[in-house]
Structures are given as structure tokens and as C-alpha cells.
């Protein structure tokens, strides 16, 4: 059966049928395999033996591996899906599973490892890190191979008892849509022997036939016992080949352990694994046709390494071999595959099996999904042909530091004429990718064409751009690299046409479909000069449609996907027009039919309207526009930003040479301010007359685009005409002026500010003191206003009331313009930290949403104040963040102690008064901190006059004399699940650390998987039928330690309480934990409703606001404060506003009612516990056991 699926689905489709237990944990890019398995199981789909596989989400990959090990030892057929760091966490269990000769398969979407930076993209760094565990490693190079080799792995592990790791390239294969032949159940059954399944089961633990496995061994036997497994490994290559042959017999698809293709008497050969092999094979065919004696050996079985098969696969004529590794092993003599091939050939030569020992060179390619193209393959062959090829090299980058990179012809195009190639540029929110996936299915399924689709997303969560690369042809598409010359280019957002990539990817004579709101006769004039030039130079046929208008008229809002998809079919000619339209309509009915007639009708209407509104634009024979492409970054930006950051922003990061990049992953702070994204047509607009200057809008703004300053009236001199200013509301500064400035180019139009505004115009219902208005009319004037606003001095922090929401708006945010979702419920907390403590803040950030919008290139939001001070931020891993933060604290404590000791030692030299002042100064209030900074500055000057080792020592730790604020931040996936043990330990350390858990009650970054914070009755991935366990009460756990400051807050419900808690936590000289409710797109409502949903969460008792303050206990009072009032809304009422709850009510009403009833009970019971705690005497709480510092 033909189907159009991606590598993840292709793999899961086999794994689910061959397993009884799937133990999983979400990690990109493997998550969809686990999600599909879960979805199928929740729908009752069975495995080969009629059992619905159990899919169990664990707290981490380490947990998943442990559960996997247990399931296997219990005799079940078990599997897991993972990647990257997840695979690393499985290593200890992998040794165990292999050491015990246990049949198992781990499916891996291979991904980079976090080194100088995290990367979610594909290479073999992760799988290469487990090559020594005893697992067999089997590598698939395409979606079809991933499907087939998944089965080979399941078959071979049963036969050999050696566990298998089946892997394929992350994203390139895991996320590439391909038309493939699916294995029928009979095919799968034919390869999986029931006898071997029973044998596996019989090896499981049973009290009926007890044995002991997993003993401790001593020097006398461990070594020999380790050698017992050799015969099993020796049988693996043959068993794998046997399974491949059996598969080939049934399907006609034949595979070899090491597969050679190319010239039978090749002289130069490339050895490669994974999707790169497909590129190498097609390139070799191309070069061979040109008369070159070249070949390629694709390695499918990597462990146990098939040395004999490799040596046998290469023709005797081979004189030179380049081995390509998709990994980097710094400091090694060469990358793993290279060393293996070298050793294999050398042995074969030594044994007389090969006449000549070829020259073998090794190179790296394709790290982190770096493109690997035919031009690069040809470049490697050219290198092999040189007199003295580089023994070690890289290909695909420009290495101007070590000079290892090879030159290559980037324009080499070897694709067959009959392959239609198309690229589409859109935004995540406009549905472009969804439409293209649909197009592929139409063409792949209905039109009997072979289709391929690959989608590139940027790293922003709001306003993100997408590029879809599609190919269609009469035969299977073997081109695992981006489309570089497209005959059809769809530009689904007018603003994107200015990106040079759009027309760079167009072939000569290509068709360009442009979504443009201009009338047809105005379209040409709307283009900039460089765009017009390219259109003329490439002789491009230009079509335009106002897709936004058509979509709106059809009732589809901003979803232009159906309109533009229709246009693609109408003009691309891939299908006959009427047939194409019919197919689109059929597909709409199929896709939306189950979701109601309304949506079907609207989409069908959009199809019909589109054809009439599509126009071919007459392209004049010369350029008429004088408009240049807009500057990406301002001319006065720092050099690094202008040269490196701007290149990344422009989509030219691939061209940056090695020398342009920092050696250790260290980048300048505060670069988002140079990336003006203008992602929303609607932006916040301030009404200076209505505004009461309460600061609410600024407090809730997730993107820090609302700034306030007060200043003397004289400062208004030279202000732009449109600059708005109002008398400052407040006592003490009668003449002062107030301005609230919106950074309109950074505004995402989320509308939270409007919701937060308490003022309504008396004469205009619905109008607030801040409203959403059109960007375009105000863009130019607001740019001037912002420039003027920025030269107003920052407000004196010692004069700002830190204790009120109103006061905080005058504190500069040092976290700004992140790429978080529009209306994000997490970022306001981070912004608040940066406002309150930013100039002495150190942040340990767990991997997750906050590490992505907080630290993803090209631009990052943590920034500096006017003095150049600001948050110092780092991300270690997902699982270790609490420990990482504790380490930062320990370092700070040691260095503070050192500084104080050295200062004492230098007392006479520095001056007793200054030393005593510094050592005894309180540093809680801002004025105290300011005074201390001044003292430390004076000390620094004093030290300049001194020398000696103690002085040097003191100078190096001088900054530690300013009280440092260490914050450990992350989401609930970290705090409740993967990092739970570490967090617990760190909270119990007694150290002065502050933990901020931004609790979205679900794994947000990886797409909505259940965490232990997910509420009872909520639907999430891995809880498709509704979560059936209540949330863990992290607050009570921490309170049990008695010396931990604990607060549960929700800024949308009570910003003042949030502010109080954050300040108290920071001031507390011990561990603090703030659990912060964060609304999220994964909850399923318009983000603009985030604040009202937070309010309802608190009002219903779902999220009671509490504070537990050990300082209060020490003062003899009850430390437990209940800050929210008794629930005054039913849980059901709160929940009806959120899709995560509503979904269950729609799908399983009875179960939903049962769960909401139970959840209501939980809420009431917890409230009674809290109320009881809040009314106890202080003596009912343990006193803080720690000695005061």
C-alpha cells in the first residue's frame, strides 16, 4: 500500500506493531514517533498479536530506559523512541540491556548533542556516543528505509538476542514526507518469528522458574563473563542480512549491510551512512555518466561493524576512499566511521583480501542538519582526485581557521528534468506548511506521483517563517536536500519577498505566485528595486492574488492556505486544473468533514473565489522601482551584530566562516533589539489622556514593548510632533511628565495589555487607555518617538517604589523582544526578574521554551542596562538545571567569601572605613545596593593604586561584593519531571538560591505532552483520554523542608501578590521556590484571554495563591499565607474556557464529567488543607532549623 508519511511515522508504524510496551519521553525530533504510538494505542490499535501496546510516558529518558529494561526483563517486547540528550541518558541502561543479551529496539531520530550550544537538528553525534554500549546500530537513509529497517531491527534482535538501535537522520528523514510503500501486517508477521517471541518471553523473570540476573561480579569472573557474548555478536551481520533478504523477497526492496553503487572499477569511493548516502548515490550516478570512475558505499549496519562486508563491497580497483562522518569527535585521530573503515581495509589488505591498501581520508559533513548536496559530494571526489588530498577535511562550510573545508560547486544541479520542484515561503500562522503537506498527499495519493516534502521552520515561536520544499516526479524522489532551483515559488506573505532567499531559489523562467493586497496593476510597483531586478533577470512569470482578502471573505480569517494552494494547482500545471480543483475539494471534505459542515463550506468557498481573483501580472521590461531592500540592522549596531547576527537574520548564516563565530559558545547579550520583526499588523496604541498610569499593561506585556518613564518638562524640548506625554500622576513631582512608549515594531499584537487596562473611555464603549491599532499609520512616527524616548534618562531606581506594580513600570526590563509566542504567559515573570534584580542577576535556565526564546540564535532577549550591567544567563541541560544553578551559587559564595577575606587582609592598605562599610553594608533596598556599588567602585579605584597577589586576587572577585541574585528558572517539565530529583535536592541544600517554575502544566516546547503538573482531566499528548492523576503539590513538598520560601503566584490574577512574592523570595537568605502559573498556547484559548483564564484558575481554586515565609515563622507568626479568597467559581466553569479540558468533554463526556467531579473534590480538599494551615498557630509549623548566616 502506498502512503505519504514521514520517517517518524514510517518507523512508528512498524514499532507499534512489534511491541507490547513503549516507554517514552518527548524529545525533538523523535517525539512524533512516541506520540503516534500513543495515539494509536489510545484508539485501540493492536500489535501483531492482538494486544494494544502500553505507551508509558516517563519522567525522563533515563526513566524511559529504566522502564524499558524492566519491561524487557519482564519478558515483554519493548521499545522506545528518542534522540540526542535523551539517548545519552539511556546509556547506563543500554549497557545493561546489551550485557544481558536482551532483544530490544530503540528507534532514534539522530540529532546533534548540546556542546557549545544546543541544537535540535540532525547529525550522528548522539548515536555515535552509544556505539560502545553493545547495541547493534542499524542506519536508514530514507523514509522508505526507516520503515523497512525498523522491521529488520525488530526481526534481527529477536534472532540474535543483541539489542538494536535503529536510527535515521533527525528532521531530514524523521520529518521528510515521502511517498512510500507500507508494509502489510503479513509482511511484518513473516519476519517476526513467534517462536523467538516466546523464547524472549521465557527469558523473562518469573517466580515459577526463578533465577537471578544482574549480580555483582568480582575480578575472578567479570572479564570472562564479558567475553561470553562474542558469538552472539558474530552472528549479527548474517542475521541482519537474512532479515533484509526475507524482506526483499516479500517486497522487492533489497538491502545490503554495506551497499556499493557506482562504477564497477571505481578508483575513488565515498563511504557514508544515513541520508547523505542517497545524495552520494545520485551524485555518483551523475559523475559516472560523465565518465568518472567513482562509487559510494552506504553503511547500513554500523555495529557490529561489518568489516568483511565493507572490504568486499569496495571494488579491488579502489585506490582512494573518503569516509564521511556526520559527527565530530574533538581530539580524536579521526571520526568513528573513518577509523572503522580504515581498520577494516587495513586488515583486509593485511590478510591478502585486498591487493592494494587504498588511501583513506576522513571528513565531517552535515552537522546539525547542515545541507549535504550533490555539489559537496562532487567536491569530495575532486579532493580525492588531488595529488595530496587533505587527510582530514570538512565539507559544507567555510573553515578559514583550520583550513579543513573543501571547495565545492554549490550550483551543481543533478536532478532529473521530470522532477517538479517548488518552494513556498510563509508564516507559521498562515497555514502554508499544512497546505503543502496536503498538496503532497493529494499528489502522492491521488495523482499517483511520487512526492517529497521538507519543511524549514525558524526558531521563533511567534511570527515564525516557514519554507516548504516540495518535489514531485514519476519515480521515487531521492534528493534529501533543499530545493535550490524551483520552477515554482510561492511567496505567501508579501513582506517575505524582500528576503533574498525567495528569488534566489527560483529557476530561470520560474513561476512566482505572490500574495499581495495591491490591485493587479499596482503589484509591480509595490516591489523593491532588487526584487524587480531579479524577476527580470530570471525571466520570472509573476502571478498575484490578494489571498488575505479572499480568506477573510470566505470566513477563514488569516488562514490563506486554501486560497494559495488552489492557486498553486491552478498555475503550476502539476495536475490538470479541473482535476486538481476537484482533488482539493475532496481533500477539504476529508480533512474537515469530521469537524463540521461550516468549515468545509468556508474552505470550498475559498477555492471557488480564488480562481477568479488570481491574476497574471504584466512584467515590464525594465526596473521601475527605486525602493531598496530595507536595512536589516541599524548602522550603529555593534560590529558583531552587523556582520554575524545580521547574516543569520538574512538567512545567510550558512555562509558565515568558522572565524566569524565565538570559540566557546559565548555571545553578546541583548541582540533582539536589533531585529525589528514587525510581525503584527495590529499594535498597542497608548491613549495618554485616558491613562491612569497604573502600570498594569507594562507589567503583563510578554514582549517588553511597553515602557514608561517620567521626566522633567524641560526634557520635552525637541520632541517629535507625535510624541505623547501626560502629567505624571502621583505626589511629590508636580511638574513631572509621563510617557508610555510602545515599541511598535516589536509588538506582537497579543492584546494582553488591553485586557489588563482597567480604564474604559466614558464616551466610547470598549475603548481602553491602551488599544490595538493599525501598525502602518503609526510606524514612521513611532520610530521617531522611540528614538526620542530612548534618550530620556532611565528613572532613578532608588526613587522607584519596587513594592507596587505601578512602580515596576519605571524599571528598565533587561529581557526584551523575545521570540516567545504572542501573548506568552511565562515571559512576564522573567521580565519582572530582570527589572527588579537584572543588574546583579545570574540565571540558570532549564532547556525548554524559556531556553529557546531566551537563548536561540540569531538574536537573544537578555540584555544590559545603560551601565552595561545585566543578567548573566546560561543553559546547561534539561535535567540538571537546579544542580547547575546551585553550582553557580556555590561559586558565587566561594568568591564572595574570598573577596571578603582578601578585603580584610588588605584592610590597612585599602582603608579601614571603606572595608568595614563594604563588609557590613546591608544590600536589600535599591538605595543600599546603589551605595554598595559606589563603595565597590571606590575600592576598585583604590586597588588600582596597589599591587601584589592579594590585590590581584581581590580584583578578580570584586563583583561578588555586590549581592548576587541567583535564579534557577524553567518549566514544569523540568521541575516536576526530569529535574524533579535535582530540584528537590537543591531546595534541601539550604543555599541562597531562587527557583522560578513557570508552570504551563504541560511540556510546551515539545508540543503539549503531559507532565506531572498537568491537571486531572486535562487532555494532553500521552493523556489523550484525559489525565487521571491529580497534580503533584510541589509547594507543599517544599514547605515540608521548613526553611524554603515558597509561593504560588499568577500574575494575571494578582500581579501585586506576584511582585511581593518575587521580592520576598529574592530577599530571603535561603532557598526559595516560586511556582508561577503561566498561560500557554497548549491550553487552547486565544492568548488574549490568558489573564482572564488565570483569574478563573485562581477564582475556582485550581490555583490558590499562597506564600510560605520562614522569616515570618522565625518572627513567631504563622508563615503560611493564603493570598487568594475561597473558591467562588466551579472548576467546571473555569475549565469550559480551555480546549485541553473541553476536548475531553466533547470526546468522552461521561469520563470528562467524572474527572471534573474528582478534580473538584481535589480542589476542595486542598483548599481545606490550606485554610487549616493558614489558621494554625506559628507553633504548628517547624521552626527553621538552619543557623542564621
Amino acid at each position, binding site marked *: 500500500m502506498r502512503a505519504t508519511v514521514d520517517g517518524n511515522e514510517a518507523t512508528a508504524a512498524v514499532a507499534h506493531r512489534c511491541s507490547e510496551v513503549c516507554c517514552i519521553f518527548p524529545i*525533538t*525530533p523523535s*517525539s*512524533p514517533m512516541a*506520540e503516534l504510538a*500513543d495515539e494509536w494505542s*489510545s*484508539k485501540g490499535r493492536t500489535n501483531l498479536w492482538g494486544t494494544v501496546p502500553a505507551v508509558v510516558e516517563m519522567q525522563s529518558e533515563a526513566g524511559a530506559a529504566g522502564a524499558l529494561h524492566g519491561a524487557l526483563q519482564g519478558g515483554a517486547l519493548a521499545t522506545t523512541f528518542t534522540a540526542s540528550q535523551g539517548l545519552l541518558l539511556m546509556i547506563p541502561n543500554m549497557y545493561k540491556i546489551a550485557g544481558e543479551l536482551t532483544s530490544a529496539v530503540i528507534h532514534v531520530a539522530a540529532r546533534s548533542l548540546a556542546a557549545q550550544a544546543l541544537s*535540535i537538528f540532525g547529525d550522528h553525534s548522539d548515536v555515535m556516543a552509544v556505539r560502545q554500549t553493545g547495541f547493534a546500530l542499524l542506519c536508514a537513509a530514507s523514509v522508505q528505509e526507516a520503515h523497512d529497517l525498523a522491521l529488520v531491527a525488530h526481526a534481527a534482535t529477536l534472532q540474535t538476542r543483541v539489542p538494536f538501535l535503529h536510527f535515521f537522520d533527525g*528532521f531530514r528523514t524523521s*520529518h521528510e514526507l515521502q511517498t512510500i510503500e507500507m508494509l502489510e501486517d503479513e509482511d511484518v508477521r513473516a519476519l517476526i518469528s513467534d517462536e523467538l517471541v516466546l523464547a524472549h518471553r521465557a527469558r523473562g523473570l518469573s517466580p515459577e522458574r526463578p533465577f537471578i540476573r544482574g549480580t555483582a561480579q568480582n575480578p575472578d569472573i567479570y572479564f570472562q563473563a564479558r567475553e561470553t557474548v562474542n558469538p552472539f555478536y558474530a552472528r549479527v551481520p548474517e542475521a541482519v542480512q537474512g532479515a533484509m533478504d526475507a524482506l526483499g523477497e516479500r517486497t522487492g526492496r533489497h538491502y545490503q549491510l554495506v551497499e556499493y553503487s557506482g562504477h564497477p572499477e571505481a578508483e575513488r569511493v565515498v563511504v557514508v551512512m544515513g541520508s547523505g548516502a542517497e545524495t552520494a548515490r545520485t551524485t555518483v550516478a551523475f559523475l559516472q555518466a560523465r565518465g568518472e570512475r567513482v562509487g559510494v558505499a552506504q553503511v547500513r549496519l554500523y555495529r557490529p561493524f561489518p568489516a568483511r562486508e565493507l572490504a568486499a563491497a569496495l571494488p579491488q580497483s579502489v585506490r582512494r576512499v573518503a569516509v564521511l562522518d556526520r559527527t565530530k569527535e574533538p581530539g580524536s585521530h579521526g571520526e568513528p566511521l573513518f577509523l572503522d573503515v580504515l581498520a577494516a581495509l587495513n586488515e583486509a589488505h593485511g590478510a591478502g583480501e585486498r591487493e592494494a591498501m587504498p588511501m583513506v581520508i576522513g571528513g565531517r559533513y552535515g552537522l546539525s542538519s547542515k545541507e549535504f548536496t550533490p555539489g559537496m559530494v562532487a567536491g569530495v571526489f575532486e579532493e580525492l582526485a588531488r595529488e595530496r588530498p587533505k587527510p582530514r577535511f570538512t565539507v559544507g562550510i567555510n573553515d578559514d581557521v583550520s583550513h579543513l573545508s573543501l571547495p565545492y560547486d554549490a550550483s551543481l544541479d543533478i536532478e532529473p528534468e521530470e522532477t517538479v520542484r517548488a518552494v513556498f515561503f510563509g*508564516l*507559521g*500562522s498562515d*497555514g502554508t*506548511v*499544512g497546505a503543502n*503537506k496536503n498538496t503532497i498527499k493529494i499528489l502522492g495519493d491521488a495523482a499517483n506521483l511520487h512526492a517529497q516534502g521538507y*519543511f524549514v*521552520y525558524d*526558531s*521563533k*515561536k511567534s511570527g515564525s517563517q*516557514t519554507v516548504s520544499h516540495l518535489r514531485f516526479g514519476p519515480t521515487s524522489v531521492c534528493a534529501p536536500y533543499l530545493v535550490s532551483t524551483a520552477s515554482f515559488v510561492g511567496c505567501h506573505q508579501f513582506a517575505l519577498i524582500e528576503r533574498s532567499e525567495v528569488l534566489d531559489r527560483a529557476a530561470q523562467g520560474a513561476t512566482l505566485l505572490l500574495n499581495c493586497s495591491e490591485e493587479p496593476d499596482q503589484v509591480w510597483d509595490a516591489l523593491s528595486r532588487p526584487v524587480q531586478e531579479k524577476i527580470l533577470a530570471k525571466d520570472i512569470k509573476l502571478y498575484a492574488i490578494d489571498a488575505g482578502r479572499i480568506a477573510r471573505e470566505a470566513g477563514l*480569517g*488569516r*488562514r490563506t492556505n486554501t486560497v494559495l494552494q488552489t492557486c498553486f494547482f491552478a498555475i503550476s500545471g502539476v495536475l490538470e486544473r479541473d482535476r486538481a480543483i476537484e482533488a482539493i475539494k475532496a481533500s477539504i471534505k476529508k480533512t*474537515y468533514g*469530521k*469537524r*463540521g*459542515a*461550516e*468549515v468545509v463550506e468556508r474552505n470550498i468557498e475559498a477555492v471557488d473565489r480564488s480562481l477568479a481573483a488570481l491574476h497574471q501580472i504584466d512584467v515590464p521590461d525594465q526596473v521601475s522601482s527605486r525602493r531598496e531592500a530595507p536595512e536589516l540592522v541599524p548602522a550603529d549596531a555593534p560590529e558583531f551584530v552587523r556582520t554575524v547576527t545580521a547574516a543569520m537574520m538574512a538567512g545567510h548564516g550558512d555562509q558565515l566562516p568558522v572565524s566569524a563565530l565565538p570559540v566557546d559558545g559565548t555571545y553578546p547579550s541583548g541582540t533582539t533589539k536589533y531585529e525589528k520583526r514587525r510581525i503584527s499588523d495590529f499594535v498597542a496604541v497608548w491613549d495618554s489622556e485616558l491613562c491612569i498610569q497604573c502600570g498594569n499593561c507594562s507589567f503583563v506585556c510578554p514582549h517588553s514593548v511597553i515602557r514608561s518613564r517620567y521626566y522633567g518638562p524641560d526634557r520635552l524640548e525637541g520632541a517629535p510632533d507625535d510624541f505623547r506625554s501626560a502629567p505624571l500622576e502621583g505626589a511629590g513631582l508636580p511638574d513631572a511628565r509621563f510617557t508610555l512608549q510602545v515599541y511598535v515594531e516589536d509588538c506582537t499584537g497579543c492584546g494582553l495589555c488591553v485586557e489588563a487596562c482597567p480604564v*474604559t473611555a*466614558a464616551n466610547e*464603549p470598549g475603548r481602553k487607555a491602551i488599544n490595538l491599532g493599525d501598525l502602518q499609520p503609526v510606524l514612521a512616527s513611532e520610530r521617531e518617538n522611540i528614538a526620542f524616548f530612548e534618550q530620556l534618562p532611565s528613572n532613578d531606581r532608588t526613587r522607584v517604589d519596587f513594592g507596587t506594580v505601578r512602580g515596576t513600570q519605571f524599571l528598565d526590563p533587561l529581557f526584551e523582544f523575545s521570540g516567545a509566542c504572542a501573548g506568552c504567559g511565562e515571559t512576564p515573570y522573567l521580565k519582572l526578574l530582570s527589572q527588579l534584580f537584572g543588574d546583579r542577576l545570574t540565571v540558570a535556565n532549564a532547556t525548554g521554551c524559556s531556553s*529557546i526564546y531566551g537563548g536561540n540564535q540569531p538574536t537573544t532577549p537578555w540584555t544590559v542596562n545603560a551601565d552595561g550591567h545585566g543578567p548573566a544567563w546560561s543553559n546547561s541541560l534539561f535535567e540538571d538545571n537546579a544542580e547547575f544553578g546551585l553550582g553557580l551559587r556555590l561559586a558565587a559564595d566561594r568568591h564572595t567569601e574570598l573577596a571578603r577575606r582578601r578585603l580584610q587582609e588588605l584592610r590597612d592598605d585599602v582603608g579601614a572605613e571603606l572595608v568595614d562599610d563594604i563588609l557590613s553594608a546591608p544590600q536589600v533596598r535599591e538605595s543600599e545596593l546603589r551605595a554598595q556599588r559606589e563603595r565597590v567602585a571606590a575600592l576598585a579605584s583604590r586597588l588600582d593604586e596597589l599591587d601584589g597577589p592579594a590585590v590581584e586576587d581581590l580584583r578578580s572577585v570584586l563583583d561578588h561584593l555586590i549581592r548576587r541574585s541567583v535564579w534557577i528558572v524553567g518549566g514544569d517539565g523540568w521541575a516536576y519531571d526530569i529535574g524533579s530529583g535535582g530540584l528537590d535536592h537543591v531546595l534541601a541544600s539550604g543555599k541562597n538560591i531562587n527557583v522560578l517554575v513557570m508552570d504551563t502544566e504541560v511540556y*510546551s*516546547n*515539545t*508540543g*503539549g505532552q503531559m507532565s506531572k503538573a498537568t491537571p486531572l482531566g486535562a*487532555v*494532553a*499528548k*500521552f493523556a*489523550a*483520554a484525559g489525565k487521571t492523576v491529580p497534580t503533584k503539590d510541589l509547594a507543599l513538598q517544599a514547605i515540608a523542608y521548613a526553611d524554603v520560601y515558597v509561593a504560588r503566584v499568577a500574575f494575571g490574577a494578582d500581579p501585586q501578590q506576584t511582585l511581593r512574592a518575587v521580592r520576598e523570595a529574592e530577599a530571603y537568605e535561603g532557598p526559595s521556590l516560586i511556582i508561577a502559573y503561566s498561560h500557554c498556547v*497548549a491550553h*487552547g*484559548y*486565544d492568548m488574549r484571554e490568558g489573564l482572564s483564564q488565570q483569574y478563573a484558575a485562581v477564582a475556582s481554586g485550581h490555583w490558590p495563591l499562597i506564600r510560605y515565609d520562614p522569616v515570618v515563622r522565625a518572627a513567631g507568626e504563622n508563615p503560611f499565607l493564603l493570598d487568594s479568597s475561597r473558591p467562588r467559581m466551579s472548576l467546571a466553569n473555569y475549565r469550559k474556557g480551555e*480546549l485541553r479540558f*473541553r*476536548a475531553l468533554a*466533547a*470526546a468522552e*463526556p*461521561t469520563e470528562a464529567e467524572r474527572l471534573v467531579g474528582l478534580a473538584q473534590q481535589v480542589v476542595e480538599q486542598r483548599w481545606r488543607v490550606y485554610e487549616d494551615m493558614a489558621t494554625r498557630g506559628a507553633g504548628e509549623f517547624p521552626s527553621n532549623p538552619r543557623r542564621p548566616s
Partner: protein
Amino acid sequence: MDLSTNYMGLALRNPLVASPSPLSYTLDGIKRLADGGVGAIVMFSLFEEQLRAEAARTIRLVEETAESFPEALDYFPDVVEEDGSPRNYLDLLERAVAAVDVPVIASLNGVTPEGWTDNARAMQDAGAAAIELNIYYLPGDPEVSGREVEQRHVDVLEHVRSAVSVPVAVKLGPYFSSPGEVALRLDEGGADALVLFNRFLQPDIDHEQLRVLPSVNLSSPADARLARTWIALLRGRTRASLAATSGVEVYADLARYLLAGADVVMTTSALLRHGPGYAAELLDGLTVWMARKGFQSVDEVRGMLSVPADADEAAYERAGYVTAMRAANAGAYDAW
């Protein structure tokens, strides 16, 4: 005392029926209504338009966040589908039918022909004893003629009638030029019961906050007079059962409706105000009154004060009307 009543072919233990209200949102609420003693329960109305809007909203929420970030190509499991089918309603209906021993009548408000028929059929399949068509239709378009509005009612009825075999009631509003004629047309069109009258919920205006308030006003006994008049008039002239709704607060309101000729009397407001258990109090009051007046069964009471089918309706009606107006305006309009 014999309170048993026949309502569009359904045998009820008494003539008091709980009309659509939030009390029937949950199985527990429906059980409490039944335990309170009512003779039948009309469940809250299923609004097709709302279902469609919610399905469209769900799609928007699911799709707008999808396919834009490489680590999270979507945020919800595939089972998150609101398909526009009233699974929730049907599930509750099915459980309600199984849980209570009085007839459960489903109430439907549609917008499209398929919406009316498909949902009615689904309600029947889920065990509804009958279906009440809540034709809540306010022609906002001043161009729409009165005849068109009437025809719409008849069309909806005929559509549903052709789709289901259980009894079908039509709940209609009073705003027709000739409500009696409309009632007769619906009777002819196959209605098994006419429910008089729907109260249109009219939004209020907050003059301080300058906004429109979607307010719900419970009915008061004064609201009963209009329905009572028309029931009195239609009694004996239709094949369809007559149900009175609006303005039941005390047992006397129940008695008055029965005297005017209602087969059953529906109430929401009283049960919302006093709780489902109040039904028993109303019925007790009725029983005591009947005993006091010497009635043995509600059948004896029913229609005693209706307009006899052979009377000169206009004269009968005008007589009562003019007398009432005179009394009301005594003093102020003496000359009139």
C-alpha cells in the same frame, strides 16, 4: 387524586413538566428534577449554531498554533476534535433516559436543514421520548415578511417530522399577527404539541458602563396571562397537545393554566428560584386545591375555563380584554 396526564401520547404521572434550564446541564441535575416529582423533563436546548461556532473555534485554536515551530508541530493530541456533532448532549441524554423514570424530552434549536434533522434523529436514537423544537427565531432583517417567518416554522417542523418517529413539539413565540392561525398551521403540519410561549431573552443596557448586558430574566406570574389566553382559545381546536410555559410561581398558576386548557404546565423559573424539590410543593398545592374544589382528576379541571370551541371567539375574547383594560385604567382614563 389522579394527576396522570397524557402529553402528546406520553403518559405522565402529573401535568408539571420541567422546561429547559441549566438544571438539566448535568445528570445529577436531571435526577434531582425527577426526584422533585415532575411528570417529564425537557432538557436544555441544543443550539446548532453554538456547536458550529465551537467546532470552528477549536479548529482555529488547533491550526493556528500548528506547523510553525520545529519542536512543536502541534500542541494537541489528534483526538482533540470537536466535529460539530453534539456528543456531549447526546451522551447526557442517553444517561438521563436510563437514570430517571419520567420521559426525557430533548430540545433543539437548529440553523440549517441538516442541523435540524440530523440532530433530531440523533436525539431520537439517544432515547429522547420526544423532541421539542425551540424555534427561537428573531427576524433581525426588517425585509423579512411575517408569512416567511411563519413558513419557516412550518418548514422546520415538516423537516424534523419527516426525520423522526417520536412525538415532536413546537415551542413558539407569541409575536405573530395571528398566533392562533400559526398554531393551527403547525397543528396541521404534524406538531404533536404546541408549547406556548417562548420568552425571548432580551439584552439589557448598562447605562453607567455603556455596554449591552446579556441578561436572563426569570418569568413572573404576570407573564402567564398571554399564554393562558391563547391556550384557552386553542383548547379543543387542535389535535396537538397544549403545553403552557412561563409564569408559574405558585400552585395557583398551575391550576389556572389547567383551567384554561393546558395539557401540561412547564416551569423553569420556580424550580430555579426554589430548587427542583419545589415541584413537589407545587403538586401538593394543586392536590389540596383540587380536593378542596372536589375534583378527582386533572382531566376534570383541564379546560374548564377555556373558550368553548363553538363560541364566538372574537366576542369572548374582546369581552374579557375590554373588561380587564377598564379595570386596570380605572381613574386615569375614566372618560375612555
